[in-house]
């Protein structure tokens, strides 16, 4: 039996941690760094490079280097988020089966879960090299506001990577655990988690060994990447005005600018002004043209202020749902690379009227929390108890377009809710039901999770069959649907089509391909039959 680790699978960086002799710690990679870039670069010879080494190839191998794939995970091809990513990414995003998103590299299409699996495999490798033993189990973190599809896809990625995913936990919850574990606190804490691609705010009450999430809110498409995009747009526009050439039209030039913009952003956390100089970035008739601009912190701050303000709207929502005000918060914890920026820190301090906890590393804290949870689950010792909630309401579509909410958001998980369904015409043998997640009262405005079909209903007059359908949200935040005949108690078959996901067979095949062992894969939604 192998070891269990905690993995923070971030949009821009990943980190793996363990609990060693009762102490949680992050593990350094081959380059001795504790965090690795979430980048996979596919080489001409069929090999691939993952992590910080791959990030260095983003320019030379722009079209075959995948970054920020998490922004695409579990999303449908036609969603606005995917369109947005397509406009700025240097790699090719194409449509796969079942409205899923695929990434086309050297004529092969990869699912997003597969790219995430490659990151997870790298983290597994780093931990194994450090420990000198096999790692086969992990707690993997996701943004609190991830929906069912995104969580399922993350779990699939774990399976493809040959890991038994003990649990999917929310990033801010993991951070709270890392901050409060073993301290015997009695506090209300706010976790301001501004990541590379997503923003989450969670409000928790810590009572010694119990960590209760009172409310959570988030934006799954708002992060530090957006800061980069602002800078890219600014420089590209300025360059266009001066030279009438669009940097964004060349993948290589865009990639160069992207790297430089990211570096400028990081530098502006330390310095008041920075220079960005890219010699010969574009070719004109008269020869190569340089891009050479300086930008100061204030101006950059103005550029991103609206993005930071957007996070406070989300904070308002979370506090309101928790029936608390900023004055009730005892401790504030910052998570994620972008919170290292003085502009963000200043704004957050002004919002919460409070300094953030200084002894927390915003880039390691999530994976450390995941490692603590992994140890709690695998070792028979008193650990921490997480009482988490579901970030979005779950409901079904009804005639007339309204969503019938079964489980409200911020409901403690695991939880379940049942409804009784019947037939609407004589001898009907199947009923179709669509499930959604979201807060809009019209289901069309919410995220479709999938459609399930109650089949093999015994022939009977209309309205007579009574089928009790139970909707469960498990501790991972993943939705399971089961059904039984209310009169006979017999299990009723449920066929569920998950939108944008991988099939059971696909997971098996990919696992075999990537790890060489495909035989014993844990059951994928065991009580459901997938329609391919």
């Amino acid at each position, binding site marked *: 039996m192998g070891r269990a680790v905690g993995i923070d699978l971030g949009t821009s960086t990943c980190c793996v941690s363990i609990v060693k002799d009762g102490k949680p710690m992050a593990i350094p990679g081959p380059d001795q760094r504790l965090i690795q870039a979430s980048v996979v670069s596919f080489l001409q010879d069929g090999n691939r490079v993952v992590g910080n080494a791959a990030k260095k190839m983003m320019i030379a191998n722009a079209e075959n280097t995948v970054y920020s794939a998490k922004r695409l995970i579990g999303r449908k091809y036609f969603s606005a988020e995917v369109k947005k990513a397509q406009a700025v990414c240097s790699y090719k995003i194409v449509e796969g089966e079942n409205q899923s998103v695929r990434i086309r590299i050297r004529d092969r299409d990869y699912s997003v879960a597969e790219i995430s699996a490659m990151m997870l495999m790298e983290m597994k490798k780093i931990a194994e090299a450090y420990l000198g033993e096999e790692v086969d189990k992990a707690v993997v973190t996701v943004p609190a506001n991830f929906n069912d599809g995104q969580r399922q896809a993350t779990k699939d990625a774990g399976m493809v990577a040959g890991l038994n995913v*003990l649990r999917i936990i929310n990033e801010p919850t993991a951070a709270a655990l890392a901050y409060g574990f073993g301290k015997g606190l009695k506090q209300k804490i706010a976790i301001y988690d501004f990541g590379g691609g997503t923003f989450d705010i969670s409000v928790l*009450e810590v*009572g010694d*060994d*119990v960590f*209760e999430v009172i409310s959570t809110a988030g934006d799954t498409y708002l992060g530090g990447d957006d800061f980069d995009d602002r800078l890219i747009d600014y420089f590209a526009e300025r360059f266009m005005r001066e030279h009438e050439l669009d940097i964004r039209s060349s993948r290589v030039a865009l990639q160069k600018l992207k790297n430089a913009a990211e570096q400028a952003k990081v530098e502006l956390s330390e310095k008041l002004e920075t220079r960005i100089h890219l010699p010969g970035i574009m070719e004109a008739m008269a020869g190569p043209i340089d891009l050479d601009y300086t930008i100061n912190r204030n101006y950059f701050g103005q550029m991103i202020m609206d993005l930071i303000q957007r996070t406070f709207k989300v904070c308002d929502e979370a506090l309101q749902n928790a029936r608390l005000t900023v004055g009730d918060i005892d401790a504030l914890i910052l998570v994620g690379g972008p919170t290292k920026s003085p502009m963000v820190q200043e704004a957050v301090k002004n919002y919460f009227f409070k300094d953030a906890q200084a002894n927390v590393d915003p880039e390691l804290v999530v994976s450390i929390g995941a490692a603590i949870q992994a140890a*709690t*689950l*695998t070792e*028979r010792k008193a*650990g921490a*108890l*997480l*009482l988490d909630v579901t970030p979005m309401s779950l409901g079904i579509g009804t005639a007339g377009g309204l969503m*019938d*909410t*079964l489980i*409200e958001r911020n*409901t*403690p*998980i*695991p*939880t*379940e*809710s049942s409804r009784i369904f019947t037939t609407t015409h004589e001898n009907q043998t199947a009923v179709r039901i669509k499930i959604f997640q979201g807060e809009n009262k019209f289901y069309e405005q919410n995220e479709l999770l999938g459609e399930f079909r109650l089949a093999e209903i015994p022939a009977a007059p209309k309205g007579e069959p009574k089928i009790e359908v139970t909707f469960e949200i498990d*501790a991972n935040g993943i939705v399971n649907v089961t059904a039984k005949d209310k009169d006979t108690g017999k299990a009723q078959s449920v066929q569920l089509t998950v939108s944008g996901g991988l099939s059971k067979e696909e997971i098996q095949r990919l696992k075999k391909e990537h790890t060489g062992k495909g035989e014993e894969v844990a059951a994928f939604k065991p009580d459901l039959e997938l329609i391919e």
Partner: protein
Amino acid sequence: MVDEGFKRQINSLAKVIDELDYYQILKIDQMAFEEDIKKAYFEESRIYHPDKYYTEPLEFQEKITGVFKRVCEAYKVLSDPDKRALYSKLINGPERQKYLRFDLRLLKAETEKKEDEGSSPLAKKYYKMAKTAIQNKDFKAAKINLQLAIKMEPNNQTFQEKFKEVNDILASRKGL
């Protein structure tokens, strides 16, 4: 390993849980204070949280998860004052058995049935202002606005009920 006594306890609890109301599940009195509900939720979690039994056989894990789900459900309903009030009314009524598990549709039906926002524009306006005042916990302002609304439409049940509620709150505040 979990001892046999605890296993038996979980088995029998799983059997009778459908007969218990949320107060019984959290082992608290129907008159319990809000903070006691949270305390009970934490206490019960320390006993039934499935993460404590992750290495136990699957069958036992499923059973204890079933119990824990009810603990969570009980907390969710009882920690929300509106839901708690309605739930308490229902389980102390003649159809107790039917309402042991709270259904969101009940709350919706209840609020839809109850709310009569008035028919004249002025009464509507005063009632709306009263509701905003209640949200801001300014019960004195709420009382004045409700009095005005009642003057416009003396037969409106919703206005009367809200007025009584606000009066009760003001009275209880004076008592403190």
